[in-house]
């Protein structure tokens, strides 16, 4: 499977940047439609730092960190039965921008249950909790940078950003790559979600890069009589300038 490649449909206008500046795929820090950014995003320009700092090695995690069911959210919190909802597989690779697979990367995920309810105590959405579903998992990528989770497809849920605001179905991902500039937290979405057009968090991503956050349905990886599969590849900053140690 090749990672997603997105052709920019046209040069996006990232306000404040001249066209000669390479386009970032990341959202701007301030994205006023997502109201919480207004008081929580830096207002001063970020300080440029030497490559040496970007290249700082991050911590690595050993196999002892992983429980046998940590990557199977359909099993890792069972109390008296199976979690309710559509069982799915989420799999892919973690690579750097040069296409190198990144092995032994800690990938942590968390999500709402099938009803769109998070187990988090501050969550107030009036949808049922599932006694057999926590919604958190983790793994380390294998030697080819591959990963695979089983989980339950998360439901959409409302939030308070604006009137009738709903988040598209999504799974949160945290990734600790090998270098300091490869620390990424993102969200994975599902193909064809009608809420994309209304979600200021998804829309905060420059238009040309939004597709990178949408998993692809994979018939190849779908398991007969068991679970639909989605492919989601994660690309971290590359190291084109620096020889790989």
């Amino acid at each position, binding site marked *: 499977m090749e990672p997603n*490649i*997105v052709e920019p449909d046209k040069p996006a206008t990232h306000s404040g940047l001249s066209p000669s500046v390479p386009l970032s*795929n*990341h*959202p701007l*820090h301030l*994205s006023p439609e*997502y109201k*919480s*950014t*207004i*008081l*929580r*995003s830096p*207002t*001063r*320009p*970020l*300080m*440029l*730092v*030497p490559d040496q*700092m970007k290249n*700082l090695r991050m*911590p*690595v*995690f*050993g196999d002892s960190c992983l429980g046998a069911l940590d990557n199977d959210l359909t099993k890792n*919190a069972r109390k008296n039965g199976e979690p309710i909802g559509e069982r799915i597989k989420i799999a892919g690779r973690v*690579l*750097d*921008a040069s*296409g190198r697979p990144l092995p032994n990367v800690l990938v942590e995920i*968390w999500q709402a249950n099938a009803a769109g309810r*998070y*187990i*988090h105590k*501050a969550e107030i959405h009036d949808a049922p909790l599932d006694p057999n579903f*926590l*919604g*958190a*998992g*983790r793994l380390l990528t294998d030697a080819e940078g591959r990963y695979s989770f089983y989980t339950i497809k998360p439901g959409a849920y409302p939030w308070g950003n604006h009137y009738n605001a709903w988040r598209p179905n999504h799974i*949160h991902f945290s990734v600790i790559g090998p270098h300091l500039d490869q*620390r*990424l*937290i*993102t*969200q994975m979405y599902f193909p064809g979600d009608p809420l994309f057009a209304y979600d200021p968090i998804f829309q*905060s*991503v*420059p238009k040309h*890069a939004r597709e*990178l956050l949408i998993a692809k349905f994979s018939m190849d990886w779908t398991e007969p009589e068991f679970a639909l599969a989605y492919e989601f*590849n*994660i*690309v*971290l*900053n590359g190291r*084109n300038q620096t020889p790989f140690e």
Partner: protein
Amino acid sequence: MTTLPITPSQTVGPFFAYGLTAHQYGYDFNSLVEGELVNPIVHSAELIYVSGQILDGNGQPVSDAMIECWQADGQGQYNTQPIAYPTDQSSFIGFGRLGTGTTRTNQFTFTTIKPGATAPDSAPHINVILFLRGSLRTLYTRLYFADEPEANEQDALLRSVEPERRTTLIATKSKDGHYQFNIRLQGSDETVFFDL
């Protein structure tokens, strides 16, 4: 050489705790790292405590941030050994992670030792990585120590910061072994964040 498009960043959102910081919030899931960057028994004589708040543009403490620290050991060496679980078999971890929602004042407190200098032109420091609801990207900053004035004076990165903003990167010493480091997301004393 192929260049693949980078995966865009998204906010950590408000509900990360039961996944990323489960144990300290009392959820039924283990945590690989927490607020102790060292084994406090092994290092009892040299322990320091680094506390602070994340403050928004109104000066209000943020209750749903997650802060990570990554630092060298007392000799200026980063831990290259795999972090194990449970962690108590390793006396120096160097990496920690706390959410700000577990205390009434939304203070975080890391337990660690003072890092050694990692290079001749570098003062002791801790790399700080910050995520919060309302932030769409990874925020990076550094923590230096107020009781290292000469080393701070020689630090290449600190010297490249506008003089009037340098104090935003320097933890103050509240009492012996206790440092205070508030991160201000906005305002006249907005913390310096790095472009990585």
